[in-house]
């Protein structure tokens, strides 16, 4: 049961990254990192307890968003969904991410929610998580000890649990630059338009003419974490994209997913539409009407 009264917690407001990393080093699991707050505050009202919340609000220069045709896209932990929607570079070079951001939640939430926060929430339903998974992003984790990179394939451990160590903070998200023939797309199913996904899909394909030379497919709400779809990827890789291969890929998805019944939909329904949505997403990426 939700409450109008937040439980008591200490709000930590580091003024620099160094201070933030020191706090994390000291407090470890006692602290929850608060970026946009759109998940954390709702969870706290529903009973989630944290002794300390470390807000990134006073940290400067963490809301950057930069694209370079060689090194790709870089964004900070404070970069909002709204910034993604406003970016012509993202729209042009990372359609999957832009499409996910465009329909993400509501305008108010897009103004404060962050892409990195979406990833680190570890929800299997995250729309931007699906896009970043297909696009093959890498998070840069910083701690008092130094930095390391965590590829999105290794990020989600189990429901709500990520590879972030409790003294670490994500300081950057990198997404590789597309090359000639890289296409991507995102689609989702919801109960109403402004909603959490009951199933979402992102696809990033490398095309050589109509031949797929590489595929990264991600699907949400069909497993405890956002997942890749290895069986479907195997079907598409090296194949010509046409109705037959798409039908095979749609069928192969069944081996990759393990959906459950929950508040938003049923396992039966998710199984029934997973292939359809994968097919449509690939078609959208490839520009097939």
């Amino acid at each position, binding site marked *: *049961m*939700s*409450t*109008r*009264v937040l439980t008591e917690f200490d709000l930590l407001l580091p003024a620099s990254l160094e201070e933030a990393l020191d706090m994390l080093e000291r407090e470890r699991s006692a602290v929850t990192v608060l970026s946009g707050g759109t998940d954390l505050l*709702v969870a706290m*009202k529903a009973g989630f307890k944290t002794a300390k919340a470390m807000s990134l609000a006073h940290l400067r220069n963490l809301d950057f968003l930069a694209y370079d045709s060689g090194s790709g896209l870089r964004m900070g932990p404070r970069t909002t969904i709204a910034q993604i929607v406003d970016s012509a570079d993202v729209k042009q070079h990372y359609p999957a991410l832009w499409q996910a951001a465009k329909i993400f939640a509501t305008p108010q939430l897009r103004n404060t929610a962050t892409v990195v926060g979406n990833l680190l929430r570890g929800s299997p339903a995250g729309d931007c998580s699906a896009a970043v998974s297909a696009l093959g992003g890498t998070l840069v984790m910083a701690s008092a000890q130094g930095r390391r990179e965590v590829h999105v394939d290794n990020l989600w451990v189990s429901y709500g649990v990520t590879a972030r160590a409790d003294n670490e903070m994500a300081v950057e998200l990198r997404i590789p630059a597309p090359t000639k023939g890289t296409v991507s797309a995102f689609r989702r*199913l919801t*109960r*109403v*338009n*402004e*909603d*959490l996904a009951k199933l979402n899909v992102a696809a990033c394909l490398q095309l050589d003419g109509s031949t797929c030379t590489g595929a990264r497919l991600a699907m949400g709400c069909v497993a405890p974490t956002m997942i890749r779809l290895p069986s479907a990827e195997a079907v598409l890789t090296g194949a010509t994209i046409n109705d037959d291969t798409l*039908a095979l890929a*749609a069928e192969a998805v069944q081996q990759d997913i393990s959906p459950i019944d929950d*508040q*938003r*939909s*049923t396992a*039966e*329904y998710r199984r*029934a*539409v997973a*292939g*359809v*949505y994968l097919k449509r997403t690939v078609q959208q990426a490839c520009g097939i009407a």
Partner: protein
Amino acid sequence: MGELKTVGKSIERVDIRAKVCGTAVYAADIKFPGMLHGKVVRCYEHAHARVKRLDLSAAAKVPGVIKVLGPKDVTTKKYNQSVIDLMASKTEGQMLGDIEEQSIFTEHVKFYGDGIAGIIAISEEVAERAAQLVKVEYEPLPVYLTPEESGAPDAVQFTPEKPGNRAFQLPEAMFPGNALGWGDVDKAFEEADLVIEDTFYTPKQKQCQMEPNSYVALFDDEGRLNCWTSGQMPKLVHEKLSRLFELPMSRVKINQTVVGGGFGARLGMVLEPEVCAMALAVPGKPVKIQQPREEDWLTSPSRHPSRYWMKIGFKKDGTPVAIDAKSVNFKGGYYLDGSALASTTGFWLQGMYKFQNLRYKGESYFTNQPVCGAFRGYGNPQTNFVLEQMIERACVELNLDPLQWRRKWHKETGDLSWLNATPYTSCALNECLDRGAAAIGWEEKRKKYANQTGTKRRGIGVAVGNHTSGAFPMILEHTTCTVHLNEDASATVLVACSDLGQGSHTTLRQIAAETLGWPIEDVRLETGDSDANGFDIGAHASRTLYVGGAAVMKACQDARGQLLDRAARILKVNRDELDMDNKTIYVEGSPERSVSARDICRVGIYNFVDHATGLPEGEMGQIQAYVSYKPEQNSPPFFATFVELEVDLETGEVELLELVSSHDIGKAIHPAICEGQMEGGAQQGLGMALTEETYFNEKGFATNNSFTDYKMLGASDMPRMTSILVENGDPYGPFGAKSVGEAGVVTPVGATANAIFQATGIQFTQGPITPEKILRAIRERGQTYV
């Protein structure tokens, strides 16, 4: 009355600036010095249990807690939070079996969230923390989520007054055979060419009014109980609180705050008993209860879920020979207006088509769910979902045009309406159907969509309905209105009618201004004060404009008459020779012979003696008019809705394309407000058809009592909408107006289901019609469409 100056115009709503600018004062905005905060301790461990032991000691010790209240620390008088029992005579109430079985804090938990104790503290935070320290030992009881379970012979009884947990059935004394209707249904089925039957489920839809519930109460130094509430029915709540706390009505004061939506959720009382009980425990200190949305969901009534069986018979030519129906409602934990809903659900059925034989049975059974009560439409959307789908199926079977069938067989002006009590006073349903069909392109689309291929299929559906304007003659109808003319010839109109956001304070002012013949700026409405206002039932049954508006009109006619009488005496003519233009009263044909309304009003109040003559300067007395009004009709509005949509056969998703509603409203007092009611109603009707349902797990815990998981359609989900106002005037309504408040929700329900039927060839009997249900049905028919 000549050309209308104010009525019929979409003037700026009187409440809109304050609401848009955020200055409107809702109950949650009310703060008093020294105000305390109340928290109802609720049971979230069980949906059905007895409280074996309640230990409030730890909660009482929390610093800042003023008082803890168990069931015996407040009045143990039983009550019924609804008000329907006040609206029937004692004899009728006994026949119907209305009961009072609720306690402020219960020892028999009947639903997830039932209130068991109260905390009063210096802050909301302290109250909340203390509530978490309340220790309770429960005896769990079996959880009943359906009438079948609670009605089983060995089920635990909710109340000894209702054996078998049957809260209500149509009483034998009023409805022989526990059924309403006419003719010989069984015989008629034998002679019918086509008989179809099915059982439907209609969902537990929540009103989702924008303002969450908040209440303030103060037992003041004069020994008066004051309550600030956003209830829809302040005067009936006045009486209810007076009874419950055994105080004369002169010692109970209701202050109605700005109401942020009601839709029936605030019909009667919600937390007024709890907040007043708390205030009585701490005399002299105001107490406020403010609830989060999730708690509102559980503590204010929702629409009744129902299992609704129907059988209908036709001749080959479409002649409707018989209809037999039974709705079994899920009552929730308490009785509330148990007698009314199961009855009206049948009244709407009875009032729509010219079936030669009809039988309807209505029942309600207690269930371990949050209470059910009034919700816009009051059984009508349920009947629409069922009846309109059954009619559609029959039209397909008989190869009849569904629009033409409805045109031919709906009841008309002069036919007996619901309860068979009064004839319909006016009916322009054919015009509604014709104009709606033309606006959406019915003929062309209906044909075009009959044969489709591909994975996306379109459908267009129609449904018709009628509703009521007020509750006459079934239950109490009454509004009083007092008008004072001020010394500057402006008017104060005292009337207790509620504006829940539907715009009634604007339309009532329009009626007053039009009747008086003055600009709307010169008319002030005084509402929401139980001391100042005389009796009015409150907002329900789409009555406010029709009954309240007529009361205002009659009182204003009287005031205007008194004013003209005085002018006639001054001008030495008969009253009927006079006319009034703004504030000047003149002799028709001789405008130079005139007198100022202001002068008459002023001298009536500032009545000095003329020293030259020794006589008063004019006629003494402030002009006041009063009416205690009871309508003699209920002028039902008729209406039709057309819905066009597209179903994705691969995913079961429904995309709403267009909705056209046309309403025979008699006369639009404020066209934009009428359209707003129709569009808002459509949003709720479409939601009931497609997405809205409160779900429970096997323990009886609500699993989606918040906007996270209870999905209403948002602006971007809505189709393109057209609202057509058919204005032919009703002989009884004020300025010819009939109601529009509830009607909008009704027909989008049936029209949506019928559009899905055309698109998929499948009828869905279990609401809401979700993509999950659609896709399963398609797959069960062996069509995968992939």
